[in-house]
Structures are given as C-alpha cells and as structure tokens.
C-alpha cells in the first residue's frame, strides 16, 4: 500500500484534479461534481462513498466522458497514465474521438449502477460480449468467442458455452452481474470502475461477487474504483477511501484511518449512523442531523454546516473550507483542520 504516496507519480494510474461537472437545467444549475481531486494508485482498490446524490456516479461518468446532456465537464483534468510516459488527459479529449473509444472498455472497464445500461435484453450474452471484445482487440470472431467463454468461466458462470447463447433475461440477478463483470474485464482493463456492483444483490451473492473481484485483481493486477454507499463493503475491499459530500471530496485517507481516525465531521457522523453486527446493545443509532439539501439550494460556506454538530458559528456559514493535508495520505476539507501554512 506504500505505492499510494502522492508524490510517487509513477505509481499513479489515474490523477483527477479540480474536476467540475455541472448540469444546466431550467430550474438552475446542479453542481453534481464541484472540484474533485483524487488519485487511483495502480493495482489497488479505492472506495468512493457518500450519501445518495453526492456525485459518485457523475464522477464515474466523467472519467469516461459519458456524462449526458444537459451535463458537462466544466473544468479539471483526468490524467490516465497507461505506463511510462504514456499520459493522456481524458477531460481534454473529444467525447466521440477514436482515442476515447479505445480508452472506454479497453484501458478502463465499467460496471454501471443500472445493469440495463450496459446489457441489452434483445441480444444474447455472447453476441454482446464478442462485439465489445472485437471493438478493442484485433481478433477474429472465433477468437473473440473463446475469449468471452473464458471470461464467463473466470467469473464463475457454470456451463459458460451454453450461457454464451442465453439472453440476459434468462439469467438470475447474480449471474447478470457476473456477465457485466465479465464484459468489463474482457479486454484486460487497467482500471475497473464498479458503480454499486452488489447493491441489488443478496449478502450471499454479494459475497461471491466481492470474492471474485478480489481474485481477479490479484490475477490481473488491475486497479478498482469501487463506488458504494455500503461502508461494510468498503471496509472489506478497499485500501483507500474517498468520502464525498455534495459534489466535493471532504476526506480521503487509507481505509484504517477512515474507519478508526476519521477527521471530518461528516465522515464521523456517517460512521456513527450505521448499525454494526455484534454491537446492537450499545444504545440507539445516531442518525446524521437533517437530510441532504436539495441540489438547487446548496448551503453557503461549508456545505455541511446545516447538519454539522461541530460547527464554528460565525465562520462555517460563510467560509468555504480548503483542503488540508494532515499527513501525506490523509486530506480533509474542514475549517477545524485549516492548514496553518495555507
């Protein structure tokens, strides 16, 4: 895990800086992602957490330039380092350029939150997989078929030769999720973006999928960006965690620090609100005050101030906190931790 040092540029696969993605609607502008910075070290799993609507999915879509109108990347860079001096700023590419098409699905695979976004009910699993493979790899139909079956096997689908000809509606939820993982992995991506990959599944099916993702990471060495609001999944899977609130990163640290020494009041409140197995006798649950503000009425100052129990009255309502670096791997955006060196 030492390769997540922020200065060790060579180990960084993806470097996101100052990313802003807004939706311009009649009712106003939704600042879905409003100045996000984080890095994804090669070969590790990084978790993105936060309440519904905080901008997790829009961040993921931005990385692939798949944000739909009226949404737009306004600012920032998304630098992908595919090895050596091979750096490309995805944010600067044209959204339907050949270069971007090669990145999507080849360098970066994605499992979408809505399974139906990436699986069509009209075509067989095999057809969809071979199409995706042939888009990125210079292979004949037969070879693509072999590759697809091999991937279906790798994700633990029984009788893959037969499932190759099945339609998605003939598969169970857990199997469909595996097919999506197989598709996302079929071109050996360096980064897998998994947006709530197990949220719709049972704990036992979830356990199968998580185990599978860990195995495949060991085998292929890819990095995983795991988006979820399930803190249990994050604790089990991730080495680093990014906590988002209203389109901003409020805290980032290694997983142990996030769970045992969180510094942002939002991270602390989030952790206190969840029921924990084996701790049910320790009193009532402690919900976060109030609820997430609606996106058109963003609070002034620190966006968390209306819900914060540690608010510095007179300052937090007006001053927007900058990011402070508490140690090389731990950053936090809160006035309680203002960086004395600015």
């Amino acid at each position, binding site marked *: 895990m030492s390769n997540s040092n922020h200065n060790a540029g060579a180990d960084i696969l993806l470097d996101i800086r100052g990313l802003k993605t807004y939706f311009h609607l009649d009712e106003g502008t939704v600042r879905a992602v409003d100045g996000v910075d984080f890095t994804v070290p090669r070969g590790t799993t990084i978790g993105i957490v936060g309440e519904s609507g905080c901008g997790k999915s829009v961040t993921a879509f931005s990385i692939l330039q798949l944000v739909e109108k009226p949404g737009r990347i306004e600012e920032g860079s998304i630098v992908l380092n595919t090895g050596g001096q091979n750096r490309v700023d995805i944010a600067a590419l044209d959204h339907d350029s050949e270069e971007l098409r090669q990145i999507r699905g080849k360098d970066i695979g994605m499992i979408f939150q809505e399974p139906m976004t990436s699986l069509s009910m009209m075509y067989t699993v095999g057809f969809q997989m071979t199409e995706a493979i042939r888009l990125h790899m210079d292979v004949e139909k037969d070879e693509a078929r072999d590759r697809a079956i091999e991937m279906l096997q790798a994700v633990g689908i029984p009788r893959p030769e037969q499932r190759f000809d099945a339609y998605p509606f003939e598969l169970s939820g857990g199997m469909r999720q595996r097919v999506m993982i197989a598709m996302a992995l079929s071109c050996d991506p360096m980064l897998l973006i998994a947006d709530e990959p197990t949220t719709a599944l049972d704990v036992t099916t979830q356990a199968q999928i998580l185990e599978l993702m860990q195995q495949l990471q060991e085998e292929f060495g890819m990095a995983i960006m795991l988006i979820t609001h399930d803190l249990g999944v994050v*604790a089990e899977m991730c080495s680093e965690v990014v906590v988002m609130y209203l389109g901003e990163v409020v805290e980032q640290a290694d997983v142990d620090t996030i769970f045992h020494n969180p510094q942002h009041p939002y991270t602390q409140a989030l952790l206190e609100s969840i029921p924990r197995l084996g701790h049910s006798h320790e009193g009532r649950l402690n919900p976060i005050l109030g609820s997430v503000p609606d996106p058109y009425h963003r609070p002034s100052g620190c966006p968390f101030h209306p819900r914060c129990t540690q608010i510095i009255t007179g300052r937090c309502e007006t001053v927007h906190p900058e990011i402070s670096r508490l140690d090389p791997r731990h950053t936090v955006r809160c006035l309680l931790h203002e960086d004395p060196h600015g």
Partner: protein
Amino acid sequence: MADTATPSAPAAGKEPLLRVEDLRKYFPIRQGFFGRSVTQVRAVDGVTFDVFPGETMAVVGESGCGKTTAGRCLVRAFEPTGGSILYRNRDGDEVALDTLDNKSLKPVRRELRMIFQDPFSSLNPRMTVMDIIGDPLRVHSIASGSELEDRVADMLLRVGLRPEYMRRYPHAFSGGQRQRIGIAKALILSPQLVVADEAVSALDVSVQAQILNLLQDLQAEFDLTYVFIAHDLSVVEYIANRVSVMYVGKMVETAATDELYHNPKHPYTEALLSAVPRPDPRERSQRIVLEGDVPDPAHPPSGCYFHPRCRYAQDMCATETPELRPIGEGHEVACHLAEDLDLRGITDLVPRD
C-alpha cells in the same frame, strides 16, 4: 434499548398474538409449449412461527425466498394455500385468519397493517399525502372532514413530518420522507400488529437510522408488535427480539436474536452471518462463499433444500427433508445435523486482535 437487551422478555408468560403453522402459498405458473402445463411456485412452503405481543420478530433470507409472500398472507392480502394463522384480536378472542371471509375480516384488517417494501412505488402519485394517510380512516368509516384532517396532521407529527405538507403529492418528498408517509398510513388505524416489509432497505444509511429509531419510538408509544421483514442482518440485530431465517419458502431456524447471531445451528444461517460485510477494516471477516444460485422455488431440490450448497451435507440430506424442531431455549432448527455441527456465530467469524 432495554427491549433489545433482553430479547426473550416480551415472550415470557404471554400468549402469542399470532400463531402461524405450516403456512403455504403456491402460485400457479404456466410453462412449456403454449403454456399448457401448469406447475406451481412454492413461494411459501411450510412456515411455522409465533409472534408475541410487544416484540419485534424478524424474518430474514435471500431475495425470492418468500418473505414478502409470507408477510402478505399474515395481513391476508393473500389467501394462503394451506396451513393456519391464528390471531388474538383486541377483545382477546382467537380468530383463524386463514379461513375468515371478507366480511369478518374487515374489523381484523384494522388491527393488522403492512408497511410496503418500496417507498417509491407503494404510494399513489395522484393522491395528496392527506388522502393517502387518511384513506384507511375513510374506508373504515372512522373519521371524515375536519376530524380526519386533525388525525392525519397528528400522525404526520408523530412520524416527524410537518402537517403543512399535507396537501403535497408524494413526488415532492425524499425517499426517507416517503417511507415516513408509508408508516403514518400503516399506523393511522392504531393497529396491534404491523408487518414492515423491508421498511428501510431502499434508504440511505443516515435516513435508515432515523427511520429505525422512529419505528422503535412508535412501538413503545403505541404498544405495537412488529413482524420485521428484511435481508440486512445488521439492521435486524439492532431492532429484533427474535429472528426467523427462511430458505426457499421454508423456515430453517428461529431463535432469540443474540442466540441466533452467536450460536447459529443451521449451516445456512452460518453462511448468511459470515457474508455480512463488517464496517471495520480490522474485522475483515472470513466469508463462507456459497456455491451456486438460490434454487428456483418452482423446482426445489430434493431432501433438505439447502443440500446442494451445504458444506456439511451427508447422503441422507439429499433424500430426507428435515423438520423444524425445538432444540431448547426457544431455539428451533430444521437440520439433520444440528446437534453435531460446531457452527460459527458472529463472534467467531471476526478475528480478534
């Protein structure tokens, strides 16, 4: 929280409020060429449990195991295919819910209410919040006009919503607020028993905590008994006094919450507990990964339904169906080897440092 600290307390010395025995609900489905052959989905296939007054009885299990179907039978939204449901009404009489006709059911329906699984689709988008919550009062001719309005306003306050919002439509509310509306609708008739079907599953963690606290407050305030259907075992541990585990339409284990979590006796319960991700990187658990998928209830396996996935299965498990049987201290289990196995509960699954 004293109530969850002593899980068996509400049961002690009291008559059950609900006695469910061998409950079954089959759905006919058409299969084959032109849908000519008819088979049955055994959605609920022999479920037995008691619910005591004032307790929270949880029903857990994987998706499709029959939890919702069982819950709907309890409030008689479904007519059971077989088995019996005996309910002790407010007057203290025991009535057989499974055989009552519609007319005799009506007064009982006031006492048995359900909170539905999905806060987004269970509220009629064309009705105002007042109409949604007030509707049961009208249907049962309990209140109308300004009295109805007052009662709705009062109920909204109880569930933490502002009465001014009464004339709004459901789309103007967040998921958590909609779930509160669903709760208000279920409680407006002052029921005895509430079946809460995945009442918090669709909610964000922070909102989930608010709703769980609310359900506990309302239970104390109105003397409610809950049947709490859920698949999240951390939530269940927090709210339930006793827990029943379902697998493919059958009850496989029932026990007091602490007992079930620390001393499970069914291999499926052990696997379920091991699969719950712990929100603590220092407690990365040793999950037991089950092979294969949940069986199709239209074509369940022979013998013990769990045998194709059970790591402890013996030859007899493929042929003989284990019955749910008591093994002491209110603990019931349906496994041939219950006494011989040394299964891991939540304490053993977490490596101690």
